[in-house]
């Protein structure tokens, strides 16, 4: 007998159906609204800080100056003549001016004396020159040279010289069509054009004296560096590591423009001008034809290692010091081996170009750390005796102090956030590479600090013997990278890496440090919202000048870092400030404003930042720059009232 349970009329299907319906509805709505959320999980763009003046860093000590204040001397220091004959001011590249009319007290009254528009709206990275009563300014492509008559009010242009470089050169200029300035020597102005020509112009008449074609844009070569004239020789290096060039440094006779010697940076010793005098300090830099054996077969021919940075000269030792750029392509797996002589500091004899010593700063470079930064020559007390050194705030994040005669690394200390290496072994001279941060083909490696432009890129630092401090304008950026296999097609980019940069720890993208080379630590530090891409200038009046990428030209107290004065210019500042004594005997400070360069490409080249790998990854870190500045190309000169 089955018991008569009430026939259950619950409909199991009814409950199940309702649950299914609600689930489906939720799923549908969920998928619809996700839509195209852009993958910016890792693009930590820092919240755009209001353009408030730089905040002075935490380690502001009361200390007025460095340990070696007054005890550090600049080799071959000439008495101050109130002129500015070469971008780095002197052969020791100190960018220190003896003028002291502008002091920490009256700097706040600085006001605009006159300004001059160059008519070119790209990155203005050059340094104006002052020779006698004339100021010379070089513009980015098309590289016009203006001569401004300082004796007349408002400094009207006396003449201008137009080298008319090839327009196609713009297609192989990796990081904006910039030019870093000219140099004056024996009555002539020497500078380079984007399409690899060195030109000499008569300083008075503006007539062309000679012109020399040094490279070929079809191989991806361009020239953006400011030349240096040493003992009648004009030293010029090429750039284009991202286009598979083969780097060289060429010396031209200042009078005739004939090539005196050319030293390549890859290939057999004969072409690298390595001979019997070559005594590198470290074992791994010693050996025969390392420029060939440290590359896969034939890859040294597209090995990069240009020389587009700064050159210093020590008259006493009669040696020039400069660094070579990154190896090509960026993808390290395509070039196993040390890839000599990329990212290397060379000491050469200026007359014959023969290498005396070399130190490869970054063997088998993984992150595009060019070794081209300026080497500032100093004689400073070290462990009880005075050593003839060069101090170089390097792109890999370390301030190197090296013996100028032998290349021995005395000290290497980080001046920014560094996790790609964990220290430099002073015995072997090699950095301890962090394997986790090695780029991999086909996989994104994250949070590599410093990013490709390094802790400090080309923007030159300045040194004041009075305060014994090194003033370093630099950036604070990290990056995610993914290696890809690069294909070498001559005349086209040969990079092999997808890069996405963003602000480093702390969220600020720029820093201006005062570094004590003897105590080997920062004395004071100013953080900025944007990378500090302009050069630094320090004067005997203990005032230090630099500009920010959103257009603030600032003067700080060289000893304490306190902001004395600032002025908002028409466009972002990536130029090199200079100071001179005008015909009226007053001290003036001049700076070119015009955003651009690699960091400012987002504005200068009209980049669309929706592609976060644009401009080799820099666009992602500078998304808010277009709101802060537009393009410009104007020279500003300030003086006391």
């Amino acid at each position, binding site marked *: 007998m089955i018991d008569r349970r009430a*026939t259950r009329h619950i409909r199991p*299907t*009814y409950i199940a159906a*309702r649950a299914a*319906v609600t689930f*489906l*509805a939720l799923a549908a709505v969920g*998928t*619809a609204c996700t839509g195209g959320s852009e993958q910016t999980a890792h693009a930590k763009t820092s919240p755009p800080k209001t353009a408030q003046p730089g905040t002075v860093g935490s380690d502001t000590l009361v200390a007025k100056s460095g340990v070696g204040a007054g005890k550090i001397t600049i080799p071959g220091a000439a008495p101050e003549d109130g002129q500015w004959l070469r971008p780095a001011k002197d052969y020791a590249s100190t960018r220190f001016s003896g003028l002291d009319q502008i002091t920490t007290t009256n700097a706040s009254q600085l006001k605009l004396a006159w300004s001059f528009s160059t008519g070119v709206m790209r990155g203005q990275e050059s340094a104006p020159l002052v020779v006698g009563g004339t100021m010379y300014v070089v513009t980015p492509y098309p590289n016009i040279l203006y001569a401004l008559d300082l004796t007349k009010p408002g400094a009207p242009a006396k003449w201008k010289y137009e080298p008319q470089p090839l327009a196609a050169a713009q297609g192989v200029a990796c990081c904006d069509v910039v030019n870093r300035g000219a140099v004056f020597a024996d009555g002539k102005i020497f500078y380079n054009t984007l399409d690899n020509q060195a030109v000499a112009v008569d300083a008075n008449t503006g007539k062309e004296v000679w012109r020399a074609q040094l490279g070929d844009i079809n191989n991806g070569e361009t020239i953006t560096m400011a030349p240096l004239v040493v003992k009648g020789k004009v030293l010029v290096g090429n750039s284009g590591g991202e286009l598979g060039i083969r780097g060289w440094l060429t010396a031209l006779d200042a009078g005739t423009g004939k090539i005196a010697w050319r030293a390549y940076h890859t290939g057999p010793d004969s072409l690298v001008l390595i001979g019997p005098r070559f005594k590198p300090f470290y074992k791994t830099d010693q050996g025969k034809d390392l420029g060939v054996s440290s590359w896969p077969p034939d890859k040294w021919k597209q090995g990069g290692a240009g020389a587009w940075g700064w050159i210093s000269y020590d008259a006493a030792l009669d040696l020039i010091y400069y660094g070579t750029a990154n190896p090509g392509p960026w993808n390290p797996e395509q070039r196993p081996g040390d890839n000599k002589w990329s990212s290397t500091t060379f000491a050469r004899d200026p007359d014959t170009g023969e290498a005396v010593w070399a130190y490869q700063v970054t063997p088998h470079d993984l992150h595009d750390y060019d070794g081209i930064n300026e080497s500032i020559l100093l004689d400073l007390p070290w462990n009880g005796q005075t050593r003839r050194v060069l101090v170089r705030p390097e792109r890999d994040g370390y301030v190197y102090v090296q013996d100028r005669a032998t290349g021995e690394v005395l000290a290497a200390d980080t001046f920014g956030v560094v996790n790609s290496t964990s220290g430099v072994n002073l015995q072997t001279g090699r950095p301890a590479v962090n394997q986790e941060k090695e780029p991999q083909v086909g996989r994104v490696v994250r949070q590599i600090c410093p990013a490709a432009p390094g802790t400090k890129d080309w923007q030159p630092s300045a040194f004041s013997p009075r305060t014994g401090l090194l003033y370093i304008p630099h950036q604070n950026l990290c990056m995610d990278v*993914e290696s890809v296999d690069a294909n070498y097609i001559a005349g086209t980019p040969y990079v092999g890496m997808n890069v996405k940069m963003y602000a480093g720890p702390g969220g600020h993208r720029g820093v201006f440090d005062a570094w004590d080379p003897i105590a080997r630590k920062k004395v004071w530090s100013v953080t900025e919202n944007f990378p500090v891409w302009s050069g630094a200038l320090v004067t005997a009046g203990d005032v230090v000048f630099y500009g920010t990428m959103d257009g603030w030209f600032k003067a700080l107290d060289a000893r304490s870092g306190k902001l004395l004065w600032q002025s908002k210019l028409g466009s972002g500042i990536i130029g090199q400030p200079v100071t001179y004594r005008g015909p009226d005997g007053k001290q003036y400070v001049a700076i070119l404003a015009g955003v651009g360069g690699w960091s400012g490409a987002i504005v200068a080249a009209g980049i669309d930042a929706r592609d976060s790998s644009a401009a080799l990854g820099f666009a992602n870190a500078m998304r808010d720059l277009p709101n802060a500045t537009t393009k410009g190309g104007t020279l500003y000169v300030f003086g006391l009232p």
Partner: protein
Amino acid sequence: MSARPLPAEHTGESDPKSIESVHGRLEHVWRNGPGLWGWLTSVNHKSIALRSIITAFAFFALAGVEAALMRAQLARPESSLIGPDRYNQLFTVHGSTMMFLFAVPMVQSVALYFVPIMIGTRNVAFPRLNAFGYWVYLIGGVLLYAALFTNTGPDQGWFSYVPLAGPEFSPGKRVDIWAQMITFTEIAAIVAAIEVIVTVFKQRAPGMSLNRVPLFVWAMVVMSFMVLVAMPYVATASMMLAMDRLIATQFFNYAEGGDALLWQHLFWFFAHPEVYIIFIPGLGMVSSIVATFSRRPVFGYTAIVLSTVSIGFLSFGLWVHHMFATPLPQTGQSFFTAASAMIAIPTGVTIFCWIATIWSGRPRFDTPMLYVVGFIALFTIGGLSGLFLSAVPVDLQLTDTFFLPGHIHYVLLGGMVFPLFGALHYWFPKVTGRMMSERLGKVSFWLLFVGVNVTFFPQLLLGAAGMPRRVYTYLADTGWGGLNLTSSIGAGLLAVGLLVLVVNIARSLAAGPPAGADPWGGETLEWAVSSPAPDYNFAYIPIVHGRSALWADTGDLDAVSGLREDRREVLQTTMLDAEPDSRHEHPDPTIVPLLAALATGVTLIWGIFDPIGFAVGGALTFLALGAWGWPQKTKPNTHEIVEVPK
């Protein structure tokens, strides 16, 4: 002992039309609506299952044509009959159709047709869900073949390895269509599995305790549980692949932390149980046929049930033997060799039990029994060739060569298609009321048996000869021409065999001798009803006293009376001992399942082209399911006493 027919009034023999007789009233209540509308709204398990069987056979034929085209292309080296793109579409759609549109739907349809009758109930548990399952399956199949006929067929292989199937290397919508077809067929499979499980556990005839459930039904239950566990994996994986392709998720993008092996693990964790999902129903069919034609219950009932269940569990532990050539740790791989070997033991036991049944039975070798012997012969070759593939070192030589298609087809044709054709000849009389011709049956069997061997044994040899699989052609100096030609000729034989089978079916439908209720003298309940079974299956639910329901020597079958005759009612019984538990009213024919299926179809197909499709389609599906669940006004409830004679 011959089956004891139900008393006349139980079998609906007396005048069925008249309203007075029980059958007339039940027929009036349970029949489908008239015409096309009746066809679309039917919720009767037999009409839906038959429709699904015919659709699955249609897809089987289409996939067969694709196979024939592929063999024609591979018959000669460097032949330009079919280009690489079209050939890739052919082998992908052939694989996908056989696995997703033929094998699983076919075994589930056979289950949905015979399980209710075998366990003595009137309809499957969720009739409307059953209809919904069929429509979703049909839409999935039509979608795939619409793509193939417009040269948009998927071309990345039925296993669709990423990154080839990923957004970068499979441009366009081909792989999206494949991924949505997977989603459709998975919904249909899961739905069918739920129905079989609930039907077997809740609606067995009184007295049919778990140890009296026919082996066929046991196989179908184990298969359904495996479907419930395995199918969600591929549904998830195909949804992940579709999302990677349409809205740039990073599941399989190794650069941003995804992994190509994730797809392989997810897919094979589904796909290996899938081939056992296809094979276990074959066991069920063989058990039914062997019992009836050996004139004795299958030897070792408990052994076979335990073996089937253990095969079900073990099949989830083997999937990595598809991935031995990938960078997985060595020790892990040898674990899977052991697991793959272990599953051979229960399979062996099952086969030994059947041989023992034949050994001690009085077998009559009609066509169904011939197919069983063919099954034993072919499936064992498949199983043994599987041993080569589960041994890691040998697998490194033989995987991804033509040894694989050889092994697959021996296992699947041997393990599933031969039992299926045996079951076709066995149950054709029950479904259509007409006998199939024995002569044509034997001719088609021998053609198929020889055809399988001539087609696929050369492929085993080709594998050893080093010919990679999924190649649209091969060079003349490879020396593989001869074996390939033999294999193609074998494919011709298979085609002829299938043709003879189709002719046999057509002739039997038209003019086959009437079969009567129980032409073979079977032991299970489906032989207790007329052929074809009435819409309500049983006027009075039978009571089962032994494992062989009809061979028990008590007189007439006892039966339960008292279910309503003016409404669709089904008797529900307890799970273990099938004690009558309650009466449950079944829904009347309704169009809502079709609407819900169409809404699901709109959602998934439009979703391929624009994610907004998911939102709008989701809303439509919400409405359709809302209508589905809308409470009917309850009919007046007349209580009646239900007596069951002791």
